[in-house]
């Protein structure tokens, strides 16, 4: 793919296009899950191609990611799932607990903290994924089809969450092919086709 784009701090942008247009690849490039073969990816002023392997975890702690299949771990509680980014960053357990509860409260699932996520509905699981992505207060939030498997009402709810995070200063890049989600909004929309940006409005 070959794109030239710039996302400002605190910006909210949609990334759209057909399947295979390169939405996920673009997000993966920003996460350094994939390395660009040409050109540069700069995130927070850092050239990801020159980021040493050892620095990668510390870089990723600044980015929250929401996956379509939410990537929750079913061998632990909702609380422990959300606490994971804090655990790996070495937060003390009391500090972590406070932040986890705040994040769960924000997505409205504080009462489910002791349940196993496998017992929850798709929409709830997605919200736990979102809580995990934001618990660390990342500067940038990436979301890959976060509403992919959800009905319109739930999608709406999830969208509102992302907007809330954006309002407190988090940059959001949201990949989706859900046109309904995009059309009613006033945000920047990047349309990808075959690895190129064909529209930026």
């Amino acid at each position, binding site marked *: 793919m*070959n*794109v*030239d*784009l*710039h*996302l*400002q*701090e*605190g*910006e909210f942008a949609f990334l759209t296009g057909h399947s295979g247009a390169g939405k996920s690849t*673009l997000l993966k*490039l*920003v*996460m350094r*899950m994939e390395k*660009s073969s*040409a*050109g*540069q*990816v*700069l*995130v*927070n*002023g*850092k*050239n990801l191609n020159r980021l040493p392997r*050892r620095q990668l*975890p*510390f*870089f*990723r*702690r*600044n980015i929250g*990611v929401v996956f379509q299949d939410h*990537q929750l*771990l079913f*061998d632990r509680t909702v609380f422990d799932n959300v606490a*994971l*980014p*804090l*655990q*790996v*960053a*070495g*937060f*003390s*357990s009391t*500090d972590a607990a406070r932040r986890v509860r705040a994040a769960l409260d924000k997505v409205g699932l504080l009462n489910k903290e002791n349940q196993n996520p496998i017992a929850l509905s798709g929409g709830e699981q997605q919200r736990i994924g979102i809580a*995990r992505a934001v618990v*660390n*207060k*990342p*500067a*940038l939030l990436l979301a890959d089809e976060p509403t992919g498997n959800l009905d319109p009402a739930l999608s709406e709810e999830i969208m509102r969450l992302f907007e809330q995070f954006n309002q407190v200063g988090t*940059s959001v*890049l949201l990949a989706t092919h859900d046109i309904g989600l995009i059309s009613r909004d006033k945000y*920047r929309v990047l349309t990808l086709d075959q690895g190129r940006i064909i529209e930026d409005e």
Partner: protein
Amino acid sequence: MGKLNKKASSSRQTSRNESTSESKTAIGASRSANKSGHSWFQQHQQVAVDSLARLLAEPGSSLLTWSVIGIALALPLCLFLFLQNIQQLNTNLDEAGNISLFMKMYVSNDTLTKIQSDLQEMEQVIRVSVVTSEQALVEFQENSGFGNALEGLDDNPLPALLIVTPSDAGKNSLSSLVLELEALPEVDSAQVDLEWIQRLYSIINLAEGFTTALALLLCVGVILAVGNTIRLAIENRRNEIMVVKLVGGTDAYVARPFLYTGIWFGIGGGIIATVLVLLAFLLLSGPVTGLMALYGSDFVLSGLTASDLLTLLVTAGGLGLFGAWISAVRHLRLIEP
């Protein structure tokens, strides 16, 4: 779009112009985490407990691995204990390797004393004690029960005796020392006491070398067994590792639970090895004591001491850690989101 701000701008550019204002931005987004020693210790403790709980949650397969390690450790351990016990014979039978020099009949007590002091000068000799023919006769009369028979003889038929205790240097060249002493004109014959024990020692030395080689080989076996088990554990938790790496877990963080698992495998194996050795000891100590009693010895089979046990557990834990480390370094690198 709004003006370029200080932090958290994400961009992908194909142009060659690197935005300088971007490259100078501060890393403001990273929250300073609580890195206090307390938290670090807490985390290690947590991981250690969690990995043990994981092993205990699957007692069947864990026990299998523990047994493999336990048996591999018990084998050389038993051999070492066996050798250690035989070496205890060494100290019990101090006289082993003494050389008895039977003097010719005409040698007078004065000459005897002179030879004694001459021999004591020798480098290969620690000590020389004298048994005159008179003393030998008394001893013989007391011990043999032939006292009355000897009274019928005109002369004392027993020769004088020098008992030579060789030094370590002398022991190593025992046969040449014996030849040298035998060549003395006053000496009738020389005889090595309990020569078979000397031979036994060289066999023990050989066995020790063999046991060491076997122990090293089995240690490698333990490392491989743990490594392979850890490889499977990593494979089973692939998804979790992926997620942890995505939310910013370092290699060390990801490896930690597996390293603790390795330590637990090692220690558990060490415990099983101890149990096996104690069982073997219980089975053997009765018969051995009985056997040694027949030889009039108060020899007691010595088992594992507390410090042996500690060494065993530390070594086993270390082997487990090493096996897990090799495996974790190799396989965690392959899981790269």
